[in-house]
Every structure is written in C-alpha cells, then in structure tokens.
C-alpha cells in the first residue's frame, strides 16, 4: 500500500537528475516494488529481469560484495519498457489495496485534476505518469466511499471502483449506487 512517506520520497526523487545513483531501497520506492522483488530481479536467472544496475564501479558491472546502485535514468527507461498495461494486474493491485470492507475506510491518495475532478488512485498511476502529473494535479486523501461521491473525470473508472466498493460493502455500496442513479436521472 502506498505510504505518505513514499509519496514524499517520490516527490524528492522526481527532482533529482537522471545520473544520480540511488540505493536499492530508493530504487524500490521509485519503481513502487518491494526491495526483495528488486533483489530477485537482479538474479541471473530472474524471470523478469529488472533495470540495469551498477555494483562497485562502472555501470553494468557486478561484484557480489559491492554495493548495488541504480541510476534514475535507467529506472525510467525500464519503466517505459515495462509499462504495466495488464488490466488483470491492475485489478489485482486494486484487490490488494481494498481486500476487506475495513480497508475501504482507510484514506487513500487520489488525484484531483485542474478541473477539480477525481482522476484516479495515485497507487494505480505509473511512475512516468506520476511525474507528469505531479505539480499540476493535487493529491487528496479519501476513504474510497467518500471519493466516489465526488465528481470523477472518467465515469467508467468511477463505476469500476463503485463495483469494487459494492462487492466489499453491499449496504454502503447500495446506498451510493442509489444516490448516483438519482443524480443521473435528475
């Protein structure tokens, strides 16, 4: 789950030039994967090889006892090449974020665009999009039910989340659906 500290770290990382070396932990925040997932991606037999890294000297070099560093430019290039377009993966991420009815009460970070509309969950934004939107759009924290009462930029996305919300919390979901049905009929 995305943490405020991670978002702040992402903002700081966004301001750094591409040739600044990053630690494995910083790279993991930047890529929004766990540190152990990134460690696995460095194995020679990794099913999903990760970004180019440097270990003790020249870029791309390796040495088992040397400190691993990543360069921001390499991380960005890897993200662009491996941009997640798999909707099943996105659905899984949403499912993990809102696994139980109690999770629906936790505030999550949502984008609010310049028109004042909700433009999706920050967690679902690729890092490339994150940097494009940062500074233009606001990040606001809402429980999902409260976010769904707002005006959304994309009604399809709002309904996708309403479906998820209603599947986890049928009473509140039914009330919310009824409210939105009334708004549409007005």
């Amino acid at each position, binding site marked *: 789950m995305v943490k405020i500290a991670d978002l702040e770290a992402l903002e700081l990382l966004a301001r750094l030039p591409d040739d600044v070396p990053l630690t494995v932990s910083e790279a993991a925040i930047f890529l929004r994967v766990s540190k152990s997932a990134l460690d696995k991606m460095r194995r020679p037999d990794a099913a999903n090889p990760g970004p180019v890294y440097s270990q003790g000297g020249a870029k791309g070099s390796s040495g088992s006892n040397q400190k691993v560093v990543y360069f921001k430019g390499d991380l960005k290039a890897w993200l662009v090449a491996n941009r997640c377009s798999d909707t099943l993966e996105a659905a899984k991420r949403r*499912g993990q974020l809102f696994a139980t009815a109690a999770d629906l009460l936790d505030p999550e970070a949502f984008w609010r665009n310049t028109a004042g509309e909700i433009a999706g969950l920050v967690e679902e934004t690729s890092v490339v999009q994150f940097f494009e939107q940062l500074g233009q759009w606001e990040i606001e924290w809402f429980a999902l039910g409260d976010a769904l009462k707002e005006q959304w930029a994309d009604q*399809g996305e709002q309904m*996708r989340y309403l479906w998820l919300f*209603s599947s986890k919390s*049928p009473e509140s979901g*039914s009330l919310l*659906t009824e409210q939105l*049905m009334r708004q549409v009929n007005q």
Partner: protein
Amino acid sequence: MNTPFAPSRDEIRARVEAAPWGIFHLPVDCWTNELALVAWRQVRFVLARVPSDFSPELYFETGKWEQFLELLCESAIIATLLNSSNPRNWPSVVSAIDDHLASKDASDKSEQLPYFSVL
C-alpha cells in the same frame, strides 16, 4: 441449543431490496430469479458504465457472477453467450439482457392470459 440462522424468503427479499448488492454475499442456494431481478436494477446501472476491460467476475467468489447471470436470464446458454466476448461492450451486454428480460416478461404474461393464446 443454537438454532441455525435461516431467514425466511420474505426476510431475504427485504434484505436484497434494501441493499441489492447484498445478494452477492448471500449463499447461492438462497438466490431466486426474483432476487436477481431486484439486484439487477442497481447492478445494471454500474455495469452499463464500466470500461470494456472490466471483468465483473474478478470481484466475486469463483462462479458467482456467472450463476447470477444464469439465474437472471433463466438460461445458462444466454448467460454464457452474453458473458463470453472479451473485451466486452458492457452497455451492449446490459441492453441485450434488458431486451431478453423484457421479451421473457412479455411471453410469461401472454402465457398467463388464456384469452390471448386462443386468439
């Protein structure tokens, strides 16, 4: 001794009328076509507006969405046909289900009116 919780049909119907999405939290053996129709009013509203890459079945226990459609349409074949294309044009699926329900309703009514059948 504790008696197992077994709400009556009227209680279940009242529950689904109050919270239509609650049908998916009821055991499937409580479901009826009538309950599915009650829930459909809200389900169709959301389904008609989701993007084409949306997969409704991912949000429920395995098989529950398919069973809901089957019960709603009262036909496994129609439910499978409606649910099979991918990506799915959800407004069209909703519209096809609505048409099917309307034609089924009309045919049920004509069967209940003997004077029509002899005309």
